[in-house]
């Protein structure tokens, strides 16, 4: 190995080590936390807007008309056996059920950003309640 090549290899190893030190997967700063919380809050706020908008369906009925502050949605109980459907379903199945029935609209795809936003808002309004999957 030439001296030039050796120097290059050492420099590369040093660079890798430095990179590893500055971005270890299990380490993050207060600024990171703030950034991630801002990202969540922005999606949750979008969900709050959608939840109160009357635009998810076709008849202007909005989610909050039956669920003020997203109450009586019980996100902490999903997935659960939904007796009316006859099988275990997730919260998003019930969100889509409401969009299709009382709101007379078209269901959202599971990866639709609006679905994540709605879930973020519904869970936020239920924060602090213990998880009880399966509870009716």
């Amino acid at each position, binding site marked *: 190995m030439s001296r030039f090549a050796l120097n290059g290899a050492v420099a590369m190893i040093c660079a890798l080590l430095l990179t590893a030190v500055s971005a270890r997967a299990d380490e993050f700063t207060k600024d990171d936390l703030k950034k991630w919380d801002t990202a969540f809050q922005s999606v949750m706020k979008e969900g709050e807007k959608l939840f*109160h908008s009357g635009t998810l369906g*076709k*008849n*202007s*009925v909005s989610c*909050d*008309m*039956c*669920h*003020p*502050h997203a*109450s*009586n949605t*019980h996100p902490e109980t999903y997935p659960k056996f939904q007796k*009316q459907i006859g099988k275990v379903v997730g919260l998003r199945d019930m969100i889509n*059920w*409401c969009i299709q*029935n*009382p709101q007379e609209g078209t269901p959202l795809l599971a990866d639709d950003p609006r679905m994540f936003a709605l879930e973020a808002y519904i869970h936020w*309004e*239920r*924060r*602090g*309640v213990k998880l009880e999957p399966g509870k009716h």
Partner: protein
Amino acid sequence: MNKGMDRRTFLKGAGALAAAAALPVGLVEVAWGKKPGETFTFAYISDAHITQISGPQFVKNFDKGLQKAVLEVNFMDPKPDFVVFGGDLAQLGKKEEIDHGLEILKDLTVPVKWVIGEHDYYLDLGKYWQEKVSPLHYSFDHKGVHFVVLNSILTHDDWTHKRWPTAEERMHQMARLDNPEGSPFMVKDEQLAWLKGDLAKVKKDTQLVVLSHSPLYKVFKPWNFWTDDAEKVQALLKPFQSVQVLHGHVHQVLYNQIGNISFNAFMATAWPWPYPVSYNQLPNKVPDMTVFMNRADPFKERDGTGWGKIDIAGNRGVAHHYELWENSSRTVRKESGKKQPADDTYQDPKKRITPQKHY
């Protein structure tokens, strides 16, 4: 109605005359108590929230609720003396919504006493309601009972007149129940002065019935299950031996007793609301004595909705019958001499059923 009787199926399968001749017991006025006294019955329909989508299109679900209540009240035998409409005929206060609601209600075969709700008011501040429907507050006497109708959904002048760029925006803001930009309901001093004058003419042993849209006590401010100057109204009602307040707005069975005043709320015909205990982020003052109605099944369009009828039984008390469309009917009585109202079936905690638990 009685358990086991499916009225929807029954009405579907029977002709109107046959149905009227064989009404379930729950719809028939039943005498109760032993002391004599003039008895009469009136019906209570509330919170229809007729919603215009566009042009002649309205939300069918809410039309159907109001139509069903009208049909069933017309089947009452004997007929009620009148019907109280408890407010929120419209969703966004539009003339089209009020007109469409009146079109459905005109099929009632008995007179209507009208209470205004915030959804009828905040577009034009009650202008069309007064032209087309009723005054906003008034009183009347019926068979020895003094009735007072209040407009309890007023609020601060600044919020009403200065806060919003348009009347439509003001209406939209008030229509959102959980709105952090909302404003608390009030009766306000001018109406309180009128009430004081009106009650001055009434003997203190007269049965008093007060009709308002919001509860005239404080349950949960974030949803306006609340009247901000409720204590001032209660102070004017305090000298009377027996006072009954009936209200809408909360879309649920709710009852309370404060001193001599009983409070009873009725279901909407449009949709049910959760009890504030279901929102765990903020404290509430839901009265302990209320036995909740069952948690609503969203797959049954009319579950948790319905209408009511009230028996005024002279000096024996008042009985409230809740006609819940997808559940057994319920009766909550305030008998004279008893300190507070009680449900005929479920008041004893041991007799309550699992769906009455809300969380």
